């Protein structure tokens, strides 16, 4: 390792001998830094700056420094005469969908990935091609696929009806339960629009990501630990509970957190599958910035709050991780 650092020697030597070269290197470095800053940071700074701006009726918006947008987000525009928590509620739905979908994805991806890492290298590569292909598949296509599967005239509801499953559900009495959950109309089951369809699609959206994120820690699990536990007479379930789960606790938690943050911004799945009264902050951001409302500063405010919520979750997760590591 120390030898490797000595490789830098020729560079520093030539640097001291020929001064202009150094400054060119430094210039390149700072040029790169400037470029990265302009491309990766400035867009976020703009969102932040514009979130304090003001909408101008009949025009677009103007620079300003007002907290009105933030006030509107938390207590509504009419405060203190009238209070509305509509925007907080939208943020709440963002969290609700994202939490359930990310937990569901990780819980089902864990056993899958565990089994995947025990296959041969070649088989693993083939599975990874499949997983990566479905991971990269656009949100738009995934929503389209599930939309066809879940829509009332084709797809599963039609299948339920034609196979007599609907009738059977009615006979058994579970149909009423489905109706109570909002998953059926008087004639047949329906999945659009429902929380079920939204969460299913969102979970499907990040499932391949869960596998990809869990793959490195799980493939590094030492098989001898498992074998040792086996030798000492531990059953399958016991091995999973006492050996595997404790050693992947942190990556498991980290993966869930990352997927959760990613899902906070889901747009297409929510617009198509969620009931309009249960739309999320992401949908509101779009309708303010590009859509019907045309209130870019308020859209920016919502984006900032979404970003802050995501960061707070990540930081809290990180702290919790550190705390757990210290205790372990």
């Amino acid at each position, binding site marked *: 390792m120390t030898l*490797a650092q000595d*490789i*830098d*020697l*020729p560079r520093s030597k*030539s640097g001291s001998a020929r001064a202009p070269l150094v400054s060119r290197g430094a210039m390149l*470095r700072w040029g*790169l830094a400037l*470029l*990265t*800053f302009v*491309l*990766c940071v*400035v*867009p*976020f700074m*703009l*969102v932040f700056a514009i979130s304090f701006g003001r909408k101008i009726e009949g025009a677009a918006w103007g620079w300003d420094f007002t907290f009105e947008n933030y006030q509107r987000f938390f207590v509504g525009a009419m405060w203190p005469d009238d209070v509305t928590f509509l925007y907080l509620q939208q943020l709440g739905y963002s969290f609700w969908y994202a939490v359930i979908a990310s937990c569901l994805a990780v819980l*089902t991806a864990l056993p*899958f990935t565990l*089994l*995947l890492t025990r296959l041969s*290298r070649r088989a693993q*590569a*083939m599975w*990874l*091609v*499949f*997983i*990566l*292909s*479905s991971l*990269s*598949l*656009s*949100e*738009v*296509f995934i*929503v*389209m*696929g599930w*939309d*066809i*599967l879940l829509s009332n005239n*084709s797809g599963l509801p039609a299948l339920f009806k034609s196979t007599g499953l609907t009738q059977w559900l009615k006979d058994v009495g579970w149909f009423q339960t489905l109706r109570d959950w909002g998953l059926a109309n008087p004639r047949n089951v329906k999945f659009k629009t429902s929380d079920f369809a939204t969460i299913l699609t969102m979970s*499907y959206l990040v499932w391949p990501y869960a596998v990809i994120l869990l793959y*490195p820690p799980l*493939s*590094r699990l030492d098989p001898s630990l498992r074998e040792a536990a086996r030798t000492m007479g531990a059953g*399958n379930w016991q091995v999973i509970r006492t050996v595997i789960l404790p050693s992947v606790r942190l990556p498991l938690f980290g993966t869930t957190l990352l997927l959760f*943050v990613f899902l906070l*911004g889901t*747009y297409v799945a929510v617009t*198509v599958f969620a009931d309009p009264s249960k739309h999320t902050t992401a949908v509101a951001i*779009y309708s303010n*910035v*590009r859509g019907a409302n045309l209130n870019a500063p308020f859209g920016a405010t919502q*984006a900032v709050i*979404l970003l802050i919520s*995501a960061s707070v979750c990540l930081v809290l997760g990180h702290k919790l991780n550190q705390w757990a590591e210290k205790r372990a």
Partner: protein
Amino acid sequence: MRIAGHLFMGLSALVLALPIVVVSGAALNGGRSMFFPPQDPTLTRFGEFFVSEPIWTEALMNSIIVALGAATLAVLLAWPIAYLLWSQNSPLSRVLAGLGSLPFAVPPIVFGVGLGFYWGFLGGLGALWAGIVSHAVLLMALPLVTISIGLQSIDRAHLDAAATMGATEAVTFRTVVAPQTVPYTISGFFFVLVLSFNEFIVMFFVSASAYATVTLQIFNSLRNGYTPTMAVAAITFIVVSILVFSAVARWGDLPRLMGADQSRN
């Protein structure tokens, strides 16, 4: 237990494939509406998508231009940062790597909104080149990771040997570093290519409806109902993804790129 495991994997694969199969099957419909299983199967929709319907051919062209441009640009942006991080590991290089991954780490809709304002000021809103730059910045994190993995895999002994024999940094780079990292650079390029091809929300904001890529065109058509031609687009995309990742698996070490342990198997 073994059988249950195989069953579970099979079931997962089935659910994973289900929407893809349904969409693909729907592409064969003879009529104008989507049915599954397809009615009056035909391949005319493929002709429409690739040849005869200008809406789709233009969208496909835009998607290809953006994906190729973004992948090239992302690799060009990521290389110096990854190299700096590997060769110096200075605080500056770590900050740069962090900033480069930032757009990929936050909910994409926030970056999309930011870029919408950004290009509005710079006059690039609705221009194809702005779309290319946007995707390159968004997805730069991927080549950054793959190239870093590649650089770390270089045997330090080779570098020592080169240095002992008096090679300058430039010569070492050309003869040792570059050849060994080619597969990783190409993998990074392909990751960006495929993800850019499929990306929706950022493009939604920066295109400002001035042009459409395939994913945008599909979203626009969602409101008017599906046509089987859209399903052809889906098939095209999934086939491109499978081909690209198979190529990466064939010529690169996919399990290693995904972070598997080297020492086993």
